[in-house]
């Protein structure tokens, strides 16, 4: 069967299931007594396992299977939850994510996951894979291992069967069967082994369960528990006769040991129950629980649409809008009342439709925010700090194009807040703060923009240190330093000179690579500002346009050609007299508020065919790239306009100083000037 057609769906759904796993694991870590959460994680893992096995991604299925086993044990209260246990499961989820990513990028989804598989197996066996003394224990109890392994695995019913069989004079064995590595039909061998066993006695339990064995969902090894009147040696001989069986280990089950283990498991359960009842006394926990339980995701009635199809829809739509403009013109020329009304109605419908088409590209910012709780958890553990991440307004919607770009800058800022903003527990206590640091990630709409705030209650920024560093780096002079406001000083940490030096991180507390963050956000047409109070914390405020596909531009005319200049790079427009132009070493400049501003004559740069007389005064658009300014000389300003951004396509990738194009109301194409390449 050709699986390619399902691949996209598989990848999307896998991502969703993994996201659910991560989210629910975080919830579970906060409410370890709520085992219904485990069920949810288990379901996601189970579906993922099934899907990946169907698609033929064995490694993926295998690791998920191991994780599922552990989850199952947690669900049945056979394993107690611990932070280390969560670490391993999170690690497994990380690996799974990496595998899915690899598949999405056209890879085979293979990955070396030996370590985590081993850890999961250890946990499953009820051992601790974490402590350093672990190896010793393992060595010392090599003999015991088997028994321990079984011990945790029998439920009350199975245990009773074992007990009764023993009373009736049956022997109980636990048999590990290893198949040869090149074994082709594993399921067939399993079947043969079972046939042999069932002739000699009764199989009570197998691990993995029979269904999985039949589906070949196991490595080379499986274990069965049986009761029989025959001896262990006899059974071993019989099984060894089955072809492709590599090794057989038969262990008699010590029922005393089993009972002991089962009892201690019971103890565990009672302990958990005790904890639960204790927690119930705390009102806050109770509230938390109430919040958690009723949330059952309603089945959403949505379909997935490829973004390219939406682009096509949008293109067709613009055609319609352009034709609407023409119809408008014709109807006003003809002056027919009926035609008037029809065209007006059509106008209204098209503008409604346009809003809908644009809205379809909107995605909740949740898709980006989702990955942060896990990241913060891991970072907090790595840094040995206590941090609580609060997310607000995750449902705020942004255009898909912006969503794709905004993730990395946010990761950067949150890491920064975690690493340098939030103090260690001791420092916080010494300062009289709550020992748990807080990061608030907030998104909201305002006008035509989306705002994202990252607020922490950490150490804040030390002004003097930033200033000193900026002075010693030569980013600013003493004179200008004296004139700066607090905010301007904080903004210095975005300067590119600040980013490279590693020592910065302990000076300002921030500044590693923040210029990259600023650049990315500005390339999206957004801005980032910062506010801080020493010892109280900092806020980064990011302002983003709702969509990248629509931008505001200034339309200008150069001779007979029209060009668009993005408003985001324009400072202002000015009319200057030709007589005011000065020459500075082959470069024409003007005096702009005391600054020397280079002039760029677009008609020369773009080699525009000349068709009009030159005038005495020049129209100049003053643009910026970072803190550098330049004046673009044009013939006239047409006005400000919202345009739909289009690419020039793959064929014209090398067009100079042009970042794209747009279609004007009359159906003609206007090119968009890329100010960044014009200013060096």
């Amino acid at each position, binding site marked *: 069967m050709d699986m390619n057609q399902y691949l996209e769906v598989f990848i999307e759904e896998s991502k969703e299931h993994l996201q659910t796993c991560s989210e629910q694991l975080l919830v579970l870590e906060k409410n370890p007594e709520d085992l219904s959460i485990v069920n949810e994680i288990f379901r996601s893992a189970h579906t993922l396992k099934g899907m990946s096995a169907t698609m033929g991604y064995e490694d993926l299925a295998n690791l998920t299977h191991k994780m599922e086993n552990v989850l199952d044990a947690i669900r049945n209260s056979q394993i107690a939850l611990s932070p280390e246990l969560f670490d391993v499961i999170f690690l497994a989820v990380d690996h799974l994510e990496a595998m899915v990513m690899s598949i999405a990028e056209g890879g085979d989804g293979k990955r070396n996951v030996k370590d985590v598989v081993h850890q999961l197996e250890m946990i499953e066996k009820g051992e601790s894979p974490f402590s350093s003394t672990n190896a010793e224990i393992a060595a010392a109890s090599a003999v015991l291992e088997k028994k321990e392994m079984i011990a945790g695995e029998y439920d009350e019913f199975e245990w009773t069967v074992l007990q009764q069989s023993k009373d009736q004079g049956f022997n109980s064995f636990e048999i590990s069967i290893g198949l040869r590595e090149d074994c082709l039909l594993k399921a067939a061998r399993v079947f043969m082994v079972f046939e042999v066993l069932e002739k000699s006695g009764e199989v009570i339990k197998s691990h993995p369960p029979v269904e999985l064995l039949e589906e070949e969902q196991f490595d080379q090894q499986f274990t069965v528990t049986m009761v029989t009147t025959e001896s262990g040696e006899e059974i071993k001989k019989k099984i060894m006769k089955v072809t492709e069986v590599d090794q057989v280990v038969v262990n008699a089950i010590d029922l005393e040991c089993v009972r002991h283990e089962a009892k201690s498991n019971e103890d565990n359960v009672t302990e958990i129950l005790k904890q639960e009842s204790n927690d119930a006394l705390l009102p806050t926990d109770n509230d938390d629980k109430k919040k958690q339980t009723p949330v059952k995701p309603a089945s959403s009635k949505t379909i997935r649409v490829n973004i390219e199809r939406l682009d096509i829809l949008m293109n067709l739509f613009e055609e319609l809008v352009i034709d609407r403009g023409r119809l408008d013109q014709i109807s006003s020329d003809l002056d027919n009342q009926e035609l008037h009304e029809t065209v007006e109605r059509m106008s209204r419908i098209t503008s409604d439709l346009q809003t809908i088409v644009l809205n379809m590209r909107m995605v909740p910012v949740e898709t980006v925010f989702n990955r942060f709780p896990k990241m913060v958890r891991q970072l907090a553990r790595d840094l040995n700090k206590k941090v609580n991440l609060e997310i607000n307004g995750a449902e705020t919607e942004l255009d898909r194009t912006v969503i794709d770009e905004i993730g990395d800058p946010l990761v950067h800022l949150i890491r920064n807040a975690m690493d340098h903003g939030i103090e260690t527990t001791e420092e916080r206590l010494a300062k009289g703060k709550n020992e748990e640091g807080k990061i608030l990630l907030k998104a909201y709409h305002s006008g035509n923009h989306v705002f994202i705030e990252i607020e922490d209650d950490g150490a804040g920024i030390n002004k003097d240190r930033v200033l000193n560093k900026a002075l010693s780096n030569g980013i600013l002079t003493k004179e200008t330093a004296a004139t700066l406001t607090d905010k301007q000083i904080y903004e210095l940490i975005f300067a590119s000179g600040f980013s490279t030096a590693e020592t910065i991180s302990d000076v300002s507390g921030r500044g590693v690579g923040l210029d990259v963050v600023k650049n990315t956000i500005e390339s999206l047409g957004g801005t980032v500002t910062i506010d801080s109070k020493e010892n109280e914390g900092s806020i980064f405020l990011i302002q983003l346009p709702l969509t990248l596909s629509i931008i505001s531009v200034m339309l200008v005319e150069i001779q007979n*050609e029209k060009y668009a200049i993005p408003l985001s790079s324009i400072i202002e427009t000015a009319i200057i007299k030709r007589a005011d132009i000065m020459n500075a070493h082959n470069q024409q400049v003007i005096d702009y508020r005391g600054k020397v501003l280079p002039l760029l004559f677009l008609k020369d740069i773009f080699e525009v065919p000349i068709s009009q007389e030159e005038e005495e005064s020049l129209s100049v658009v003053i643009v910026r790239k970072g803190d550098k300014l330049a004046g673009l000389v044009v013939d006239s300003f047409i006005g400000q306009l919202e345009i739909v951004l*289009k690419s020039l*396509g793959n*064929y*014209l990738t*090398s*067009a100079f100083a042009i970042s794209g*194009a747009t279609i004007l109301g009359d159906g003609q194409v*206007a090119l968009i000037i890329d100010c960044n390449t014009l200013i060096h």
Partner: protein
Amino acid sequence: MSEDMKVIVFQIMDKEYAIPVDKVSGIEKLLHITRVPKTVKFVKGVINLRGVITPIIDLRVRFGFEEVEYDESTRIIVVFLDDMEVGLIVDSANDVLDIPVESIEPQPEIVGHLASEYISGVAKIEKRLLVLINLEKALSLEVTENMLREG
């Protein structure tokens, strides 16, 4: 039984050329072309083709012929090539022909001024001589970039 190949026939400088019809997505009358500064000479600019910005190549310039004013019969043949949509300006285009595959002959050494690497073959049908264009070569980005570098 002989296989036929369906082609679009167009004229440049009184010569007839052909492109396989499956590469062509449409033939348009001349639309307003927006000049793109500082690109190769044969790229005349871009047009708005039903909402898609499409680059336009003047085949006369591409083949090294003399440029002429565009007129009523000038056509833009829109072709698809590796995900790219490109418009070709030709003097006129008005024919779709089935040519038997066996009538296609390998390219002669020289055909007029046309650099022969852009030709995949010639076909003689009755008294007409059709020059089959190798689009991949004629529009090759590599060649385009080289030309850009050479100015």
